[in-house]
């Protein structure tokens, strides 16, 4: 195994470059597929760290400019908030 493949791409869910390349090679060639099968983008940072790294991997694989690789769907919340703080309408 190449050393670079052990690089952590998604640090929220500990997903390596090797895992990402493996899934891309299996035919999952968009961020949403990879998210569902590897959990990239599902952690506390919501894809802010791995998003553009994976976009670049997909661009290399598909041989298209990185701007043409669709970014992942961003969902609320923009940061983690305790359920209790919302229920009680208090500030943390």
């Amino acid at each position, binding site marked *: 195994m190449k050393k670079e493949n052990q690089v952590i791409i998604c640090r929220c869910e500990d997903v390596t470059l090797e895992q990402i390349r493996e899934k891309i090679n299996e035919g999952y060639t968009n961020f949403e597929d990879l998210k*569902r099968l590897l959990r990239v983008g599902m952690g506390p940072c919501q894809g802010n760290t791995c998003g553009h790294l994976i976009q670049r991997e997909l661009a290399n694989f598909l041989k298209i400019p990185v701007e043409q690789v669709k970014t992942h769907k961003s969902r609320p*919340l923009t940061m*983690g908030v305790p*359920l209790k703080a919302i229920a009680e309408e208090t500030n943390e």
Partner: protein
Amino acid sequence: MNKYDLVIIGAGISGASIAYNLAKKGMKNILVLDKGYFASGATGRCGAGVRQQWATEMNCILAKQSMEFFAHAKETLNYPDDIEFKQEGYLILATTQEEHEQFKKNVKLQNSLGIPSKTCSKEEALKIVPHLNPDSFISATFCQTDGHLNPFKMTEAYYLAAKHLGVEFHFFEEVKSIKVVNQIIESVTTNKDTYLTDKVVNAAGGYSKEIGDLVGIDIPVYAENHEILVTEPIEKMQGPMVMSFSKNIYCQQVPHGAFIMGRSNPFAEHNHDIGSTWQFLDEMSKTLVHIMPKVGELRVIRQWGGSYNMSPDRQPIISDTKDLKGFYMACGFSGHGFMFAPMTGLLLSELILNEKPSIDMSSLHINRFKENKATAYEKSVV
């Protein structure tokens, strides 16, 4: 033009299961079309729960036999990854006297069908989930063999098994029209191509009604947004799914460690909206903190929505139709298509191949609505 023996519309868990069951029985030339990416519809948005505690006989039977499949699915489908199936139960809370009485009847029905559910006193329920607020319910029912299953992995397991048997899948390809000549299906046209076929399965989830409309079959279903959220992952603290119909909540800790929870919006419009609202977040937080205050300390990290495809009696439509030969339906699952998928695939394969059905399917037929037959209405839905 390419010719197929069957075109399935929708590559969610239902479409994938139908394709797998047919291919396993030897059917060739099956094409599955999906307008989005892998598990982009209701399957990939669901709450990942699988349960057998239902109030209608048909839903109990579908759920129980599906659960038996899930228990061996990894081996049966020869899936290399983990489907994250765990049977740590569903604890369903009764919060009113009416529910308490209804649940006794439900358990009796479930037991008569071989489902090992039981009624629990408040004290017994607190032993199963100690962090429940004792003032938030009066009694409960529990079924140990209910539980959790990863929707993405389970769908991939069906998808890979079907592909291995020769089924073709096209993603990002949307069905635009279906040509019918003299009451026989001739072809299916998408945004990319036209395929000759005389058999079509409508497994389009939230879009089932629109697919029916393409061939003039009026399917009495509609799509409705159901929202859901997920917290940060923590060490395991809750085995079973906790659910209440009257308080409008389901909440479980998945094997990954996160808590997933959802509730329905009684005022949801009948459309394809799958957005997220602050009203949901607000009501969900309040309900959760009331029932399980300790879980309220966790941070929400994401919320999303997905379509329930609602049928009039909240039981599925697994059916052919005398109005159009070769047109089959697997829709109207009312939020429970994921957990019934093994039976959906099995029953539709029997229908399509003219085999003797494993169970009496008459109460799943679309005719039940036309003939205005009295069907049991499923109350146990969030």
